[in-house]
């Protein structure tokens, strides 16, 4: 199809689709009038059942924990796919000496940026850790924590310490950590089965006070594992792309 023809066909189709979708949306109860019952039931029972005051985490890691398991494996499969696609090909080699790397560092970071980025790294790691282990209480959880941990490494990268970054995330380590995170989640579910409960049941004691760090049984554990998986996986992705962007040199070029 030529560009113009495609555009006109698309405009006709998209107008129809938009009208159609709006027709359906008009059948909703209206904005601000969530009818329930799913969310209302959860809001009512979640704190008593799970001891978690952050109900979204309770949904993610308890009621719909099986979704989250699948989601973690989507990430895991994507990481495997990225590693497959970007694996170093024949005729390419990775630069390992600082001299070679120096003239390839992409972001022309000023010293201020480098210093700021380096200074931010520590707090970001701490914050990521906090988020990953406090799913049951505040708006946080393994995913956000994991992404923040990755961000810490991106900050190192911004600081221009590419080789340090490479050293901080050897491919094998990230691979293994990601697999342990995702597999650990699946295995926590199996542990429940061994104790005679349905798969993914919360088999740990719920602890005392709702909202305490050690409360809500497996939620904290699963959240931590998710954080591990997310951090490792995104780190792997960033590493692979960094390798592509900066370090891999093609033979004969």
């Amino acid at each position: 199809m030529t560009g113009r023809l495609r555009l006109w066909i698309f405009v006709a189709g998209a107008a129809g689709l938009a009208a159609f979708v709006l027709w359906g949306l008009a059948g909703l109860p209206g904005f601000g009038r969530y009818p329930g019952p799913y969310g209302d039931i959860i809001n009512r029972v979640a704190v008593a059942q799970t001891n978690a005051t952050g109900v979204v985490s309770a949904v993610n890691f308890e009621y719909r924990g099986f979704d989250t398991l699948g989601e973690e494996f989507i990430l895991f499969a994507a990481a495997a796919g990225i590693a497959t696609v970007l694996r170093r090909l024949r005729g390419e080699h990775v630069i390992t000496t600082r001299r070679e790397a120096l003239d390839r560092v992409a972001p022309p970071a000023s010293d201020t940026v480098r210093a700021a980025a380096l200074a931010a790294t520590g707090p970001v790691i701490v914050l990521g850790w906090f988020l990953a282990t406090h799913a049951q209480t505040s708006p946080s959880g393994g995913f956000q924590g994991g992404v923040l941990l990755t961000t810490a490494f991106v900050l190192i990268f911004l600081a221009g310490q590419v080789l340090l970054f490479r050293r901080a995330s050897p491919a094998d380590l990230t691979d293994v950590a990601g697999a342990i995170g995702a597999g650990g989640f699946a295995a926590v579910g199996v542990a429940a089965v061994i104790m005679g409960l349905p798969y993914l049941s919360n088999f740990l004691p719920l602890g005392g006070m709702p909202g305490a760090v050690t409360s809500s049984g497996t939620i904290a554990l699963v959240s931590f594992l998710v954080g591990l998986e997310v951090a490792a996986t995104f780190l792997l992705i960033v590493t692979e792309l960094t390798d592509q962007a900066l370090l891999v040199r093609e033979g004969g070029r």
Partner: protein
Amino acid sequence: MDPLLPVPTVLPLLTAAVLAALGPVLRSRRRVLDAAAIAVAAVVTAVLVVIMVRTAGGDQVYWFAGFRPAHGAAIGIDFAAGPLPAGLAALAALLVTAAMIFSWRYFDETGTYYHVLMLTFLAGMTGFCLTGDIFDLFIWFELMSVSAYALTAYRPEERGPVQGALNFAISNSVGAYLSLSGIAIVYGRTGALNMAQIGQALAGHRPDGLVVVAFVLIIAGLLVKSAVVPFHFWLADAHTVAPTPACVLFSGVMVELGLYGIARVYWSMFGQSLGHQATVTRTFLTLGLLTAVVGAMFCFRERHLKRLLAFSTVSHAGLFLTGIALLTPLGLAGAAVYVAGHGLIKAALFLCVGIVLHRLGSVNETWLHGRGRLLRVTGAVFTLAALGLADMPPFATFRGKGWIEASAAAHGMPWITAVFVICSVLVGGAVLRVAGGVFYGLGDPPSEEPQMAAEASEETGKTDHARRRTPATMIVPAAVLAVAGIAIGSLPHIGPAVQAAAVRFQDQPAYNATVLSGAHVAHPAALFAPEPAAITVTDLASGLGSAAGALILAFLALYWRRLPLLRRGFEPGAGLEQPIRRFQSGVVNDYVTWIVIGAACLGGTLALSIR
């Protein structure tokens, strides 16, 4: 709760994670990886067969983390297994097993990623079949998709795989997001994600705009996956470039999973509300038959073996959709058996093509002409499977097609038989032409077409040509699958058993009661008529007729240059090249345009006709 239900999904996930975690150790130990993947896939197949048998008397429901529904409202996620979902998942697991055995000698490189991706693919497929929750369905759909994109691009050293994977991924992602919008819309009305609960909430109300829109958007993503025209363009691109074991799964079961998803969504969520109106049948029958005819025509003109088989899958997807669209138990039962038979046979055909590629280093029909003569066993298996694809008795495809035709005839549409026979003749003829030309050197090689030669040569050079023998790990799975295609159709009592399963699949109130209140609903045997279980004379005539027609067409295609009636230089379908290129352009922008048009037209049709 049957403790076996989570096993088919969780076991492959756990194994994938363990293999990846042990990656640094296992990387150079290919055989350990292979053995683990084969063992897991085989165990999953066996577990699913057990589940299928156990659920023959009534559906099994498994609530994850033990959150059972209270007062008709689900707060957790369930697996709801019946014989049809479990059977389809078993087919998926069986094909993964066969593909992994085939891979034993297929790849030279080492590494854990291939095995990991095949296992996550398997988990996505089984989860998709068994789940009873619409958002969970989306999750497993995405896991299946992401694994499939990655497998398509498995050989990134070449140009094709990356492009095929991109077209695949972008088309399917657009479809998936349309589905997700549909899920959000129906959630906004019902406040539920459990399919049975949504079905119950929607039932008893007239289908308004929201119901129609949610239905169309949710199935839009599934139509992309099941390669229904005009949502199908990505399929040929992906099949052309994906490694053969992945093609086995794409064609043999992934496309069919999309269709299963449509049936599941219809029969557990929207069916009661839409009221099984004749317009639903008409709309999807049109889509199905259009797909069948377009796929068959594209199939016959192909010279690239993998694309040829890919288009035959498009054609068959249309025939399956036709069976589902009849909204009758017999039509659905026919589609189920047809899917099983087709999956086994198509897998066998792809494995044979894989062997050809492994031994001869090409998938170009013209170049291969007569060169396959030394692959005697492969040729025999390929020919046998090709006859199965032409719906010859006693293949399962013949049984399934017969039921769909019988059901259509009973509803005043006997002409559907003619369309089925035409498509079987075209598709079977194309594959038999390949069999006769490549493996027996009959007739003349088809003319070399520069563009197609270029496409086919993408595959060449992957293997060294010194491979003198076909490894047993490659030919045995192909032969077993082809024979299984016959065996399934000849099972005693398969007719009543599958039709009883179809009756139950379509009994929405019973499904709702089973899931939401744990009721056990028995189905009186009288519900399904015993007549179609027997093979009628009409069935035999249509089956033998299409097989004979396919053979004749194949011979005509091989020998047409020697026929006195035609003038020299005549190329059948030569004038069609340009328009076809325009549609199958390889540009993903076009594909997405067609998805938008398809969704808008489907929505418009249903919006105007449903009362």
